[in-house]
């Protein structure tokens, strides 16, 4: 679905992404993992078409992002940033309806409203529909933003740290929801800080360090104790319980 080929990105003199090449499976939950400053957000922004690589290319369904029209891009890829302050008091429902902007052309109808209510319900926040987003907690706002992305019904969802403001129950709910979307064929690509959750729930992992891909592949194989030590500089103990669950613990060396 998404392939990044030899993508290089510079900001001023510093190299943010260095010859990144990854081929991501479609209909999968893909976790982008790496320490602070590894280039996770930059890679996601390239995939979302918000930035363009200085060299190399990003392809979605075999087509270069730079060759898509704005409308094709907007109906293929949806973007959920990390929490950002919002200046105006739109209601949660109005915000989610705006997610369908590319298809509704700014004149949302009954279908747009229905699908937006369904998206809020999918995240369990239908009660917030008439609340203004400026009065929501950052976790509630995050759910509304994910609902906005769901309502857009794009085949690819790109989320920057979607769990950042969520408690453990909300995190598990969101991961379950994203998994259920991948079962319907949606490709979900998100950055995570929680290695344990990512290892358990993601299908595929891109491990970044210093703007380079350190490892890429199925979650358990990619997030091995060797790779984690190499990238994060911590030791990992992985234990397996009798019912097949793995338990991870990290220690400073």
């Amino acid at each position: 679905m998404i392939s990044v080929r030899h993508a290089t990105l510079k900001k001023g003199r510093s190299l943010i992404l260095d010859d990144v090449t990854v081929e991501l499976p479609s209909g999968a939950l893909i976790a982008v993992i790496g320490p602070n400053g590894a280039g996770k957000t930059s890679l996601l922004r390239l995939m979302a078409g918000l930035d363009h690589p200085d060299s190399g290319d990003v392809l979605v369904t075999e087509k270069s992002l730079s060759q898509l029209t704005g409308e094709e891009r907007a109906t293929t890829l949806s973007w959920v940033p990390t929490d950002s302050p919002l200046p105006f008091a739109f209601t949660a429902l109005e915000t989610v309806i705006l997610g369908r902007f590319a298809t509704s052309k700014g004149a949302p109808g009954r279908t747009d409203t229905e699908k937006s209510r369904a998206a809020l319900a999918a995240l369990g926040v239908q009660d917030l529909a008439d609340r203004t987003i400026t009065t929501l907690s950052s976790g509630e706002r995050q759910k509304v933003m994910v609902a906005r992305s769901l309502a857009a019904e794009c085949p690819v969802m790109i989320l920057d740290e979607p769990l950042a403001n969520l408690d453990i129950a909300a995190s598990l709910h969101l991961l379950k929801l994203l998994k259920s979307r991948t079962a319907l064929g949606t490709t979900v690509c998100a950055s995570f800080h929680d290695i344990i959750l990512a290892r358990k729930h993601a299908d595929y992992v891109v491990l970044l360090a210093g703007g380079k891909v350190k490892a890429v592949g199925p979650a358990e194989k990619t997030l091995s104790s060797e790779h984690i030590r190499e990238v994060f500089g911590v030791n990992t103990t992985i234990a397996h319980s009798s019912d097949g669950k793995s338990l991870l613990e990290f220690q400073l060396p």
Partner: protein
Amino acid sequence: MSPHARPQESHHVRHLRRVPWSAALGGSSCLFVVVFLLAFNFSSVDVGLKDAIELIANALSGKTFTPEQHSLSAILFEIRLPRIVVAALCGAALSCAGVVTQGVFRNPLASPSLLGVESGAGLLAAVAFYFGVAHLNTFTVPIAALVGALATTAVLVAFSIRFPHWPLESLLLAGFAVNSLQVALTSAVVALVLEEHQQGGAVLQWMLGSFSGRGWEHVAMSAPFILAGGFVATKLLHRLDALALGEDVATSLNVDIHGLRRRAIVGASLLVAGAVAVAGAIPFVSLVVPHFTRILIGPRHKRLMIISAINGMTLVLAADLIARTIRPPGELEVGIVTSLIGTPLFVALLLQRGRR
């Protein structure tokens, strides 16, 4: 996903109290009609609504006017009505410019005066007074003001084309720099005018904003710019909604934010240019009206623009009514009145935001 079985975290947060759209439209329109009738009724010349109705009834039934009615008709339709129309046009224009500016800068406390368009108009108007050409023709000062406003707009658009990837703050700071320079130069020119001419009063009146003696020719002069700016602005409203979610999200929703920014600057500038050319600088309207209307009906830009336009007409008309009746037989500058009304509103706004 099932709803979380968790205690309501924020039941203490006040629930949204927006005025329903139809009520807001009806209420604002009624208020406007009331203020319009008051403005039509009261002035230093004692011609009331009753006389006007008689006059209109006479005209419609084809009866000839008495000489007295002829002079009445001249007062009402050649002096009072055009002044009302100019005031209403300027109120609507400034408020709509405020809606667009606040939307594009994603800041509810932004105002078109940040763009420097008003100060550009002020500078060239002051220059017209300095060279003693202001009194030659009714149009000299308005044309000078228009040129100043449009030149400033051109500078801003040039900035945004030359540096398309500038963050918004930089564009605002560029506007701020241009604005400061123009204000300083204007002060210098006004000081020279006061020193060398007898027109000190005229230049000050212009700087403070006034509708004194405005006629149909002023309507004809400002309307094209205000309508053009309004037309540009109405094409941007749903994209401004998307922009409220952030520049990246708007981009991902297929909004060309650089094009939007340029068009918003052009639209807001044309609106302000049309108003400032015939009325001078009228402060606070473009800041306060959209902000209060947003609190009233919510931030969706299409509705916001319609109600703000009506409320802007009402506010400026009311301010002008106060300005011309408070100190008979003379009048106060309308800009002073909008400042006197606007400042406490603005402070109340800041206090209310601070509490949140």
